[in-house]
C-alpha cells in the first residue's frame, strides 16, 4: 500500500529513489506528457465557460486523480516510491531540506533564475524544459523572490474551518472551502505557494518543477483534513450545473472517473500520520 510521507521525514535512500524515478519518467517522455496535460487545462479552464482542473469545484478531485496517475507512473519505475508532501506551513524557508542538493535543489541564481544545483539543474542530468511558454529550457525558481510569505498554520486553519465545500458561481469568485484553499479568494493558500516558488511554478506549465507534486500532495492532504473536520459536508454541486463537474459527472481527460470516485483516498494511498 502506498504511504505518502512528509518530505521532511524521508530517508536519504527514499529521496534518492524518488529523484531517480522522476528522472526516468523524464527520459522516457512520460513526465512531459503530464506537464502538457496540466497546461492544456490551465489554458482552457475559464470562469465563464467549461472548467475542470482549476477555478472550479473539481479542482480537488481532478488534482487527486492527476497525482494518482503520476504516482502510478513513478511506481512503474520503482514500486517503492510514493509521492511525498510538502507542508509549507512548517518548512517555509529556502533553507529547508526540501531544497538541498540531494533532493530538489535550491533557488535560482539571480541573473537568470536558473537552478544550478541538485538533479534538476540543467547542467546536471538533462532536466530539459521541453513543454514551455518561452524560449528558456532550464528549470527556474525564485524562492520567496516576489516578497510573498508562505501561508501560516493559522491561515490554513482558518480555511479548514469553512464548513461549505464550494458555492455558486462555482469559479474563482466563489465563497467556501475549495476556492479559499485554491487561493482566488481570501488568505490565499495554493496559489500563493506557486507564486512563492516562482520560475516555472508560477506559470501554466508548473509541473515542470518537481515540487509541483509535493505541493499538490499537501493540498490534497488538506482536503482530507477538511473532510475529517466536516464529515457531513458533501462535495458540491450535486447535479445539473452547467460548465461544472457535478458529483457524479465524469472528469476530462479520463472520462471514467467522477468526483464521487475521488472522495476517499484510502483506496489508493494512506498517510504517514493520521490526517
Amino acid at each position, binding site marked *: 500500500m502506498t504511504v505518502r510521507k512528509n518530505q521532511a521525514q524521508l530517508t536519504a535512500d527514499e529521496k534518492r529513489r524518488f529523484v531517480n524515478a522522476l528522472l526516468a519518467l523524464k527520459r522516457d517522455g512520460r513526465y512531459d506528457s503530464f506537464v*502538457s496535460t496540466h*497546461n*492544456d487545462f*490551465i*489554458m*482552457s479552464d*475559464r*470562469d*465563464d*465557460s467549461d472548467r475542470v482542473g482549476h*477555478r472550479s469545484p473539481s479542482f480537488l478531485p481532478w488534482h487527486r486523480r492527476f497525482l494518482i496517475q503520476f504516482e502510478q507512473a513513478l511506481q512503474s519505475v520503482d514500486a517503492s516510491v510514493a509521492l511525498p508532501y510538502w507542508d509549507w506551513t512548517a518548512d517555509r524557508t529556502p533553507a529547508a531540506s526540501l531544497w538541498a542538493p540531494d533532493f530538489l535543489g535550491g533557488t535560482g541564481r539571480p*541573473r*537568470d*533564475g536558473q537552478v544550478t544545483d541538485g538533479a534538476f539543474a540543467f547542467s546536471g542530468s538533462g532536466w530539459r524544459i*521541453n*513543454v*514551455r*511558454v*518561452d*524560449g*528558456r*529550457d532550464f528549470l527556474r525558481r525564485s524562492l520567496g523572490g*516576489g516578497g510573498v510569505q508562505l501561508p501560516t498554520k493559522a491561515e490554513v486553519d482558518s480555511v479548514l474551518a469553512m464548513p461549505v465545500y464550494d458555492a455558486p*458561481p462555482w*469559479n*474563482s*469568485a466563489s465563497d467556501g472551502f475549495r476556492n479559499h484553499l485554491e*487561493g*482566488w479568494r481570501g488568505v490565499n493558500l*495554493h*496559489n*500563493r505557494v*506557486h*507564486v512563492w516558488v516562482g520560475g516555472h511554478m*508560477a*506559470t*501554466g*506549465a*508548473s509541473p515542470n518543477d518537481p515540487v509541483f507534486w509535493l505541493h499538490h500532495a499537501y493540498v490534497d492532504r488538506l482536503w482530507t483534513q477538511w473532510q475529517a473536520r466536516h464529515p457531513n459536508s458533501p462535495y458540491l454541486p450535486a447535479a445539473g450545473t452547467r460548465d461544472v463537474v457535478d458529483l457524479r459527472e465524469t472528469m*476530462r*481527460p479520463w472520462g471514467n472517473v467522477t468526483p464521487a470516485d475521488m472522495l476517499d483516498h484510502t483506496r489508493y494511498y494512506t498517510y504517514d500520520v493520521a490526517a
Partner: protein
Amino acid sequence: MSGITRRQAIGAASAAAGAVVVGVSAAHASAAPRATRPAEPASFDEVYLGRRIQGGPAGGHGGHHADHGGGYSVRVDGDELHIMRNADGTWISVINHYDPQATPRALARAAVDDLQGAALVPLVPATR
C-alpha cells in the same frame, strides 16, 4: 507546445534600459460593457524594459484565440501572450498564472519582468 523559439532572446542587458513609453494607441476600447463584468480595458502600446507590449480587443491586431472567450489580447514583441480574465475583473497570463493583476498592462509588464529577455513561444492550441 514546441520547444523552438522564433528568435534569439533579446538579452538580459536590455532589462537595464528601463521602461520607455514610445506611444499609446488610441485608448478606450469601444466594446460595450457586459452585464456581469467591467468594460473592456483601454488598448495600450508601449516599450517596457526594451520589449514592445501591446494590448487591445482580440482581432484588432490579429489575435486568434477569441474562441477561448477572451475579448482582449496581449502581445510581447508581436507574440501573443495567453491571458485570461477572472470573474472579479483581474487578469492572469500563462506566465503569471497564479498571481492576478489589475489590468492587462500590468499583466504584460509582469510577463516581461519574468521573461528576462526571453522570447515567448508561439501559442499552440490545446490538444483536446
